[in-house]
């Protein structure tokens, strides 16, 4: 057995990383197709506010972040559907407000700042068994929702109006997609970090899009690219002693650049 796997925290990190790699890019495929790439970034910032609240009030940070982030996702979707505000403006406001609240709350929670930074950038040493259970639950939820509604979400990605005409309950499905994105974003915080999670939603999908010819193929290639990036990033993080999130995203970036170069 390689020495890296003799550490319990690394085994937990690998399991968490694989759960993230198997689910996040699949969601990313549907979000990127609809030009919602920034939604995960905004939600991640809101989730950090939840983490800050959790640290301040002594509640499990993930448990505090889930309802807040789902609320943010539902609010964003509501604004988009009612056309009360341009999508971009809503995202920008939510993103900066979320981070501002997070920083203030984390500062108020004296002594918790070290722990808070692990939610910003991801940390392989701090992933607990409890985090793993949360992530497994969220990943199962994502797999179930996408498995059941795959064709509906693909139709919505193609064109919302024709999906409505085909009889799909587009409004409800959009809220559901926003909510599961929020949950998986929160549960991925520990391993990838709030500031970097959106990269894992977007980069593997863009990498896959350069070579795939169909939607299904794109999702499969994206999962493969994310898995390679996560595994490589965790190994680099372990041996080089750098933040897991940063190493994972840089690995994903290397794959993206490689795919562009290969296509040329």
């Amino acid at each position, binding site marked *: 057995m390689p020495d890296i796997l003799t550490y319990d925290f690394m085994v937990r990190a690998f399991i968490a990383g694989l759960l993230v790699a198997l689910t996040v890019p699949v969601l990313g495929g549907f979000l990127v197709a609809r030009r919602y790439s920034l939604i995960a970034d905004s939600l991640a910032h809101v989730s950090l506010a939840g983490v800050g609240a959790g640290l301040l009030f002594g509640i499990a940070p993930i448990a505090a972040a889930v309802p807040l982030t789902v609320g943010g996702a539902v609010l964003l979707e509501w604004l988009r559907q009612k056309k009360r505000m341009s999508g971009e403006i809503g995202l920008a406001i939510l993103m900066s407000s979320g981070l501002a609240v997070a920083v203030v709350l984390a500062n108020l929670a004296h002594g918790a700042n070290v722990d808070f930074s692990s939610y910003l950038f991801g940390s392989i040493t701090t992933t607990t068994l409890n985090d793993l259970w949360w992530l497994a639950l969220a990943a199962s939820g994502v797999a179930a929702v996408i498995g059941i509604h795959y064709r509906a979400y693909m139709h919505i990605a193609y064109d919302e109006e024709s999906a409505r*005409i085909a009889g799909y309950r587009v409004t409800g499905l959009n809220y559901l997609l926003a909510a599961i994105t929020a949950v998986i974003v929160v549960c991925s915080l520990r391993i990838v970090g709030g500031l970097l999670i959106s990269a894992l939603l977007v980069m593997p999908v863009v990498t896959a899009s350069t070579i795939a*010819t169909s939607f299904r193929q794109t999702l499969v290639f994206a999962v493969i690219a994310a898995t390679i990036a996560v595994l490589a990033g965790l190994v680099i993080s372990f041996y080089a002693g750098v933040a897991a999130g940063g190493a994972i995203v840089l690995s994903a970036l290397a794959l993206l650049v490689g795919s562009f170069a290969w296509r040329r």
Partner: protein
Amino acid sequence: MSKGKTSPTFAPPLHANKRLLIDVDNVSVRPQEEHILDAVSLCVHAGEFVGLIGPNGAGKTTLLKAILGILAPKPSGRIAATWHRAGYVPQRGQLYNGLVPMSVLEVVSLGLGRSQAKTDALRALESVGMAPQASMRFTELSGGQQQRVAIAKALAGNADILMLDEPMTGVDERAQAEFYAILRSLQQRGITILMVSHDVDTVLSLVTRVICLNRTILYDGSPEHFDIDTYMPKLYKEQHLRLHHHHEGSKHA
């Protein structure tokens, strides 16, 4: 029709003994102060090829959306539809241009049940001559080819009525001719067609019935009875004046 409006011209009925598919009864749509549609009534019968013409802002797309059930007639009106399955072809600009590739086969399979999706989608692609492109990326096709795929998507699942919204805007003439030939053959196969278009000449040469709309119906009848010299100034006067003013304005600037 509301009081004080010009009475529409109705040519003799073209659809004796045909099954009624769409019955639009006194539909008005008024989101704010101004009517988009004002007391519109019309019927579409099985086997007809209906062309819906009118200037920009005449309410053509709104009427189509109301018929398709994605927009409620407010404040008044009733729409009854008895089709088995309706297919919709949106404007070309609304076709998929997402960042994630979708294959032609995937596009046509949308909205079909899992079990028969591939077979039905391939059959629909064959009917528009696009089966060889089934495994290509949808976005790699030309504008005309994309619209043919959109027809295949609308037809898949045995649609008995096809509704098209300005399908050929921005498409070259050769692709348009191929597209309209497909529509003609579909109508000959018994598929009812309701097509919104700006292109009056093409509509008149193609359809079995023309409906002329400018918030309210000005003409509903056969293309042969449609007097282009009477209706064109009525339809496009406003836009002509607007263009004229714009032109005059730029001359003075």
